[in-house]
C-alpha cells in the first residue's frame, strides 16, 4: 500500500495508536509543567512575564518555540517539496525579520515596557485611546493567527489520524482550545514559556534527525540531493530556480513582493513575540535571547531545506499531492520513507514527527492566547476601564477570564472555519502587525514629535487598510482557493495587503502627527527615550 493512502485514510492503525500515545505523553508532560509553574505564579509579573527570571538561552528557545509554527515546519517543507526553490523564499523573510527586532525593538521595549506592547505605545500618549487601539490590534492580530493554527490542527489531525468526520475535526479544535486555556490560566507566562521551550527542543531534534537521515542517503552530497530532487520533481532545473510558485504572472510576482515586505516588517510587531522580551531580567538578556533565536530559527530553516528537497528527491510528487494538495504532509511522509514503509522504524519515525507537529501547534496557540489576554487585562481592563485603579489581583483575574473568553471565541471560530482555507491568515497577521504595530512602535521610540493622534491614525489606519484589503482580495472570495469560493466580491488583486497597507500605516502616523494641533509631551518623551536606551528604572 502506498504511504499516501496510509496517511490519507489512516488505515494503519498501529501508526494511529503510536501517534496518539506520543501526543498524549507530550500533553501529560506539559500539564505537569503547567501545574508546577502555576504554583509559582503569584504576582502579575509572574503571570504576564514569568517573573522576568528566564535566562537569555531559555528565552531564546521559547522565542523560537513561539515563532516556528506548524506552518513553518509542515508548510515550508511541503512548499519546497512541491515548488522547489520558491518554498525556500518564505523562510528567508521569516529569518531576516529578526534583525528589525534585534536592532530596533527588543532592547528599548524591554527597558521601557512592563507587560504588553501597549505599555510602550501609550508611554507618552493619552493612555486610554492609545491603549484601546493597542489592545484592539493585539487581539485582532492574535485571533487571525490563532484561527490559522487551530484550523491547521484540524487539517493535520484529519490527515494523520484519518479523522475526517465533522464531529472529529470540531473535537480536535475544541481539544486544542481547552489545552491552551489550561496552559495559560494555570501556568501563565511561566508555564507557557516552558511548554514553548520543550516544543522547541523536540522540533529541533526531530528536524536534525530527519536532516541527518536525508543527507546520509546522499552521502552528504548536497549537489546530488538537489539534482535528484529536480529530476524526481519532473520539473528539471526550473525546480531549483525561483518562479514555480510565485512567478506565474505579474500579479503573483507583486504578491510575492508584498508578502516578503510583510514578513520582514511584521515580526517585530507581533504582540506574542514582543511580550517574550519581558521574561528576561535585562535588555542585554533580551538582545542575547534574540541572538539565540536567530541562530535556532536560522538553523531550523536550513534544515527544512534538506527536508523539503529530500521529500522531493525521495517521494514521487503525485504521492505528496495525493496526501495533501498543499504538500503539508511532506515532512511526515518523508519520515515514513526514511524509516522504511511497512517497517516499525518507519512507523515510529512518522509518529514522532506527527507528535512534534501537534506539540508545535499547542505551544504557538498558548503564546498567542497569552498575548491577547494580557493585552485585554492590562491595556483595556486595568488602564482603560478601571483607569489604572485595578490592583494586581483584579488584573490577574481579568487576564484569566479573558483567556477563557478568547479561548472560547477561538474554539467557536476555529470550528466554523474548519473547512475554510485559512492559510492566508498567518500572512495577514504579519501584514497587520507590520502596518499597524511596527510604525507606531518605531515612531514612539525614535520620533520626538510623534503624538497621540499620530499613534491612533497609524494603528487604526494600518489595521483597517490591511484587514479591508484582505476582505476584498482573492483570499476571501472569487477564486476556487478562496475562503468563500462560491461568491465573488473581490477587487483587490493581491492576496497580501502589505505592499499598500504598510506604507499607509507609516504615512498616516506621520500625517496624523503633523495635522494635529496637539503638542507632543516633551518631558514624557525624555523619560521614554532615556529609559529605553539606558534601562534606568526598568521593571
Amino acid at each position, binding site marked *: 500500500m502506498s504511504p499516501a493512502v496510509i496517511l490519507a485514510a489512516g488505515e494503519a492503525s498501529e501508526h494511529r495508536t503510536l501517534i496518539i500515545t506520543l501526543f498524549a505523553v507530550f500533553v501529560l508532560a506539559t500539564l505537569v509543567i503547567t501545574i508546577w509553574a502555576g504554583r509559582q505564579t503569584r504576582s502579575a509579573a509572574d503571570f504576564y512575564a514569568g517573573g522576568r527570571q528566564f535566562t537569555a538561552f531559555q528565552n531564546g528557545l521559547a522565542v523560537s518555540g513561539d515563532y516556528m509554527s506548524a506552518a513553518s515546519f509542515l508548510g515550508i517543507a511541503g512548499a519546497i517539496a512541491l515548488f522547489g*526553490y520558491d518554498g*525556500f*523564499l518564505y523562510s*528567508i*523573510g521569516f*529569518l*531576516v525579520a*529578526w*534583525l*528589525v527586532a*534585534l*536592532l*530596533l525593538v527588543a*532592547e528599548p521595549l524591554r527597558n521601557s515596557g512592563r507587560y504588553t506592547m501597549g505599555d510602550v505605545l501609550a508611554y507618552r500618549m493619552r493612555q486610554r485611546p492609545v491603549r484601546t487601539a493597542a489592545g484592539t490590534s493585539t487581539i485582532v492580530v492574535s485571533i487571525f493567527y490563532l484561527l490559522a493554527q487551530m484550523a491547521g490542527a484540524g487539517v493535520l489531525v484529519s490527515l494523520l489520524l484519518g479523522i475526517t468526520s465533522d464531529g472529529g475535526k470540531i473535537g480536535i479544535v475544541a481539544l486544542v482550545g481547552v489545552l491552551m486555556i489550561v496552559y495559560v490560566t494555570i501556568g501563565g507566562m511561566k508555564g507557557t514559556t516552558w511548554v514553548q521551550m520543550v516544543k522547541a527542543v523536540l522540533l529541533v531534534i526531530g528536524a536534525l534527525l530527519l536532516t541527518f537521515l536525508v543527507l546520509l542517503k546522499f552521502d552528504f552530497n*548536497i*549537489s*546530488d540531493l*538537489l*539534482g535528484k530532487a*529536480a529530476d524526481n520533481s519532473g520539473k528539471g*532545473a*526550473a525546480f*531549483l*530556480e*525561483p*518562479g514555480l510558485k*510565485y*512567478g506565474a504572472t505579474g500579479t503573483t*510576482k507583486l504578491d*510575492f*513582493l508584498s508578502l*516578503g*515586505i510583510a514578513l*520582514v516588517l511584521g515580526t517585530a510587531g507581533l504582540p506574542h513575540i514582543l511580550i517574550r522580551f519581558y521574561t528576561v531580567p535585562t535588555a*542585554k538578556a533580551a*538582545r*542575547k535571547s*534574540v*541572538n539565540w533565536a*536567530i*541562530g535556532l530559527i*536560522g538553523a531550523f*530553516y*536550513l534544515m527544512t531545506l534538506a527536508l523539503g528537497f529530500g521529500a522531493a528527491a525521495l517521494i514521487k510528487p503525485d504521492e505528496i499531492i495525493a496526501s495533501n494538495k498543499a504538500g503539508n504532509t511532506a515532512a511526515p511522509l518523508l519520515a515514513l520513507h526514511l524509516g522504511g514503509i511497512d517497517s516499525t522504524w518507519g512507523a515510529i519515525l512518522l509518529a514522532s514527527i506527527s507528535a512534534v507537529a501537534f506539540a508545535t501547534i499547542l505551544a504557538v496557540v498558548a503564546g498567542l492566547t497569552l498575548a491577547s489576554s494580557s493585552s485585554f487585562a492590562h491595556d483595556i481592563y486595568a488602564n482603560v476601564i478601571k483607569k489604572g485603579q485595578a490592583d494586581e489581583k483584579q488584573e490577574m483575574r481579568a487576564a484569566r477570564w479573558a483567556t477563557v473568553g478568547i479561548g472560547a471565541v477561538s474554539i467557536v471560530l476555529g470550528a466554523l472555519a474548519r473547512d475554510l482555507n485559512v492559510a492566508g491568515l498567518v500572512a495577514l497577521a504579519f501584514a497587520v502587525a507590520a502596518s499597524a504595530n511596527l510604525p507606531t512602535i518605531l515612531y514612539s521610540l*525614535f520620533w520626538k514629535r510623534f503624538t497621540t493622534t499620530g499613534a491612533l491614525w497609524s494603528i487604526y489606519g494600518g489595521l483597517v487598510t490591511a484587514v479591508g484589503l484582505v476582505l476584498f482580495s482573492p483570499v476571501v472570495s472569487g477564486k476556487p482557493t478562496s475562503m468563500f469560493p462560491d461568491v465573488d466580491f473581490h477587487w483587490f488583486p493581491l492576496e497580501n495587503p502589505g505592499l499598500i497597507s504598510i506604507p499607509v500605516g507609516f504615512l498616516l502616523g506621520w500625517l496624523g502627527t503633523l495635522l494635529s494641533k496637539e503638542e507632543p509631551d*516633551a*518631558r*514624557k518623551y*525624555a*523619560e521614554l*527615550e*532615556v*529609559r529605553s*536606551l*539606558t*534601562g*534606568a*528604572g*526598568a*521593571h
Partner: protein
Amino acid sequence: MATDAPPPSRAEHGLPAADEFVAVQESAEFRELRRSHRSFAFPLTVAFIVWYLVYVLLSNYAGEFMGTKLFGSINVALVLGLAQFLSTFLIAWWYSRHAAAQLDPKAEAIKSRMESGA
C-alpha cells in the same frame, strides 16, 4: 558611585523625577549614547532591508540570472538565498559586538548615576 539608597518617595526603582530625565536627555553623555546607537542601527537596518529587497526582486524579475549554474546542481539563486542567512547571522553578531563594546558601558554609566540619585 554614590552608595546612599534612593529616598522611598521616589518611584519603585529609585527613578528620578521627570526634570532629571530632561536633564539627562540633554546631557552630552546621553547624546553620545543615542548617536552611537542610531548611527549604527539605522544605516544597517536600511542596508539589510535593501539587500533583502534586491534578493526578492532578483527572484521575481531576474529568473535567468538566478538559474545560472555555478557547480553541480548549485545555482546563483541557492547561493544568494544562503547568503541571506549568512548576512543575517553576521549582522546579528556585528550589532551585538557593537552594543557590548559601545552601548552597554555608556548606558550602564548613565543608569547607575541616575539610580543612585547623583
